[in-house]
């Protein structure tokens, strides 16, 4: 019978005839591709089979990721590839297109698979069989892994496996990825398939799909329906009752949003509370390393590069790793349970108001830990414009690096008042989110004009998540983060260090007054030491010790003073002084300006920069032991305090909105593929920060002048 034209796949899933088929792998090895619907448990299965050996990489020329691993089936070694989930080979999104191309061997670097394993959700057989049907028609060796058999057993669904095998014409292996059951049988089947490849015996009813007029989808679904009818019991109505009951609450337009906000709050409380332990350990490790290097490497430029530049910079980033890891872990669990789909569902309507899809909320959520993984997470957003808008506003979400800065400034604003401090913290987060959403609206109305794609999302049944899978995904993501952001941060740290060190200041560069000050300190130290020896001789050992300690403190003051002057002398210092006139209207003096310049590439640097600049420890008569005291008492030339509450507030607002993170810009460049976007990101955020800080300062000064709120 002549094959009717409608038998051939729809136009946008054309055969890649014009491109070479990549028949053999780089090392002539075998390739097994894992494919299936999203939510069918494909990734869990992959993780169970390969454990930690898997490596994440991009499909060449795209931002689509996939995971692959070398894998032994017994008699053969093969490359097992986890392809992105898709519902049909008629691909729409870039992920789906690449998955389809990879299956057909049209992707460079990924050979045509020697065996395709289709992961099917046994509780959703009819829908999953649609894809299976399309894959069977590819005439490649296929194995169907019937996943979620544990749910099938629990719900009392009966599936006639031999009949299913007969209907599909290929081996069907029942498995449960979560319970790790059936793995050996699956691997054994892969092994046999690689030894003796068998092309599926496509049944006549599948072939006849093409004969139906009208939508070929309809024909294929009819075939799927037939197969399911012959092979199993109908799904009982009772199934999904629990899911439906929970959803009744969680998808309610009001209660659902509240529930989601609470989940979000809980997640962040968890993150900040648990993360403080590993963060403390990391701090300790770096402090010890620094001490070790100081002992081993002679003092000088090299030692400074190692300790201040590399260790300081990299340590500053690594300290956020625990928070990022916990966030990934929690999100992975939530996704596995199926909850994230509900969250996208309830948030969609609200996010639509600012022109964003519901799926944008996970990246925006993650951005509160760090914008780098958040921007990578925007890949789930299908529409390019929606994705760009999300990437543009992600850095406005208050990330972990801002926390030390907020802490510093808020301590100045409301000292010793934890309630008000918490309130200000919350306000900072809210400002970031609100401005972000506002900017999304602006972007969608101007640069990224276009209707947001309507929401179409599958709500899978709730299920217990796989801890092991979440753990593996977290480690994987952490490694990706370290490699992507880590290299950038290493480079930045060295550059920043160079800017803050060079040009080196010699004693001759000091002003007369500074010379005098330093000499004075030196004489004071000597005097104290002489006193100490005198007391020692006179047998007043305790007082001698005290005097010696004081001498050490004065030496320390001198060192800090030199450090401060060196910083002012350096490129960073000169830039700070240069931009000071621009920063004055915001209430910032030149020291804060240097801080802002130095934190251009990494926000939290301002805290350590200010510590140096304000000579924490430097002090003439009084000793200021903490940065807080130093800041609080610092003054302009005329003696008026710098950190008045308007100035502090203005600084807070500046840091909420400013783009001060080079890794974020780099990731934006990578993900969007155009310089335009990171430049726009930097430009609009800087402008926003400046204007907002200026307005804050002016308004606050007015209020203060009229005797208004000292918070």
């Amino acid at each position: 019978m002549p094959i009717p034209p409608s038998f051939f796949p729809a136009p946008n899933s054309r055969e890649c005839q014009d491109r070479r088929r990549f028949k053999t792998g780089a090392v002539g090895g075998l390739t097994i591709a894992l494919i299936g619907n999203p939510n069918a448990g494909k990734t869990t299965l992959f993780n169970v089979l390969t454990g930690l050996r898997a490596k994440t990489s991009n499909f060449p020329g795209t931002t689509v990721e996939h995971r692959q691993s070398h894998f032994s089936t017994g008699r053969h070694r093969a490359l097992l590839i986890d392809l992105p989930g898709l519902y049909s080979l008629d691909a729409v999104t870039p992920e789906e297109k690449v998955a389809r191309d990879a299956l057909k061997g049209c992707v460079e670097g990924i050979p045509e698979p020697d065996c395709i394993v289709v992961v099917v959700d046994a509780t959703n057989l009819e829908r999953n069989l649609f894809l299976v049907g399309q894959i069977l028609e590819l005439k490649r060796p296929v194995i169907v892994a019937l996943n979620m058999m544990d749910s099938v057993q629990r719900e009392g669904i009966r599936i006639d496996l031999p009949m299913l095998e007969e209907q599909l014409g290929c081996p069907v292996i029942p498995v449960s990825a979560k319970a790790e059951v059936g793995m050996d049988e699956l691997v054994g089947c892969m092994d046999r398939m690689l030894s003796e490849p068998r092309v599926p015996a496509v049944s006549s009813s599948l072939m006849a799909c093409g004969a139906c007029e009208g939508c070929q989808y309809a024909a294929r679904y009819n075939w799927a329906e037939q197969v399911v009818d012959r092979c199993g019991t109908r799904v009982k109505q009772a199934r999904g009752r629990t899911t439906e009951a929970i959803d009744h609450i969680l998808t309610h337009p009001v209660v659902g949003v509240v529930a989601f906000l609470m989940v979000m709050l809980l997640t962040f409380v968890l993150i900040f509370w648990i993360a403080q332990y590993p963060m403390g350990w990391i701090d300790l490790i770096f402090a010890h390393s620094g001490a070790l290097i100081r002992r081993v490497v002679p003092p000088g430029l090299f030692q400074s590069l190692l300790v201040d530049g590399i260790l300081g910079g990299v340590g500053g980033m690594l300290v956020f790793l625990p928070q990022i890891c916990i966030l990934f872990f929690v999100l992975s669990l939530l996704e596995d349970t199926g909850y994230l789909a509900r969250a996208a569902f309830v948030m969609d309507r609200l996010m639509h108001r600012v022109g964003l899809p519901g799926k944008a909320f996970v990246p925006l959520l993650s951005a509160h830990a760090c914008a780098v993984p958040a921007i990578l997470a925007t890949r789930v957003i299908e529409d390019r414009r929606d994705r760009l808008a999300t990437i543009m506003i992600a850095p406005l979400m208050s990330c972990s690096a801002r926390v030390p800065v907020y802490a510093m400034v808020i301590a100045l604003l409301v000292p010793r008042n934890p309630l008000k401090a918490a309130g200000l913290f919350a306000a900072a987060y809210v400002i970031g989110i609100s401005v972000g959403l506002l900017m999304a609206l602006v972007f969608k109305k101007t640069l990224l004009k276009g209707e947001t794609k309507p929401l179409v999302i599958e709500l899978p049944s709730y299920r217990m998540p796989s801890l092991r899978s979440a753990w593996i995904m977290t480690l994987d993501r952490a490694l990706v983060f370290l490699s992507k952001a880590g290299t950038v941060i290493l480079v930045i740290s060295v550059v920043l260090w160079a800017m803050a060190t060079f040009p080196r200041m010699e004693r001759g560069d000091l002003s007369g007054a500074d010379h005098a000050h330093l000499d004075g300190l030196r004489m004071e130290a000597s005097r104290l030491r002489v006193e100490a020896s005198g007391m020692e001789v006179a047998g007043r050992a305790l007082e001698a010790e005290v005097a010696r300690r004081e001498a050490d403190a004065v030496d320390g003051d001198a060192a800090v003073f030199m450090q401060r002057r060196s910083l002012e002398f350096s490129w960073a210092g000169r830039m700070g002084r240069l931009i000071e006139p621009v920063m004055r209207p915001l209430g910032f003096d030149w020291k804060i300006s240097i801080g802002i310049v130095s934190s251009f590439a990494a926000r939290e640097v301002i805290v350590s920069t200010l510590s140096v600049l304000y000579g924490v420890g430097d002090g003439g008569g009084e000793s200021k032991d903490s940065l807080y005291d130093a800041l609080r008492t610092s003054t302009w030339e005329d003696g008026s305090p710098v950190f008045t509450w308007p100035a502090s507030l203005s600084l807070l607002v500046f840091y909420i909105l400013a783009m001060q993170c080079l890794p974020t810009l780099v990731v934006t460049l990578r993900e969007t593929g155009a310089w335009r976007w990171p430049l726009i990101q930097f430009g609009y955020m800087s402008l926003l920060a400046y204007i907002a800080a200026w307005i804050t300062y002016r308004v606050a000064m007015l209020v203060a002048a009229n005797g208004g709120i000292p918070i």
Partner: protein
Amino acid sequence: MIASSSQFEPEPSEESHREFSVMELAPMQVGIVTDLFAPDDIAGRLKSLGLCSGRRVQLVKAGDPIIVRVLGSRLGISARLARSIQVRPDTCVEEGVART
């Protein structure tokens, strides 16, 4: 479709030929998809999820977005898009179990 075993044969009436959007189904009512008035790429996505001519769809929760049941799984669809999914009432429901 298995014919119902009730005593009355449902009369072919105007009712079964009336077309309306899936939004207008009563909660838990089952309809049969007749048309999709959506741009090709979106229609493609709906079809690959099971919303294509002849398939049954059950409205689980009205609102914005709505929840429907198709091919045994539940989908969330924004109301704006749902309005473009045309259905006709399903006059034939297996006893006790809705075939969606």
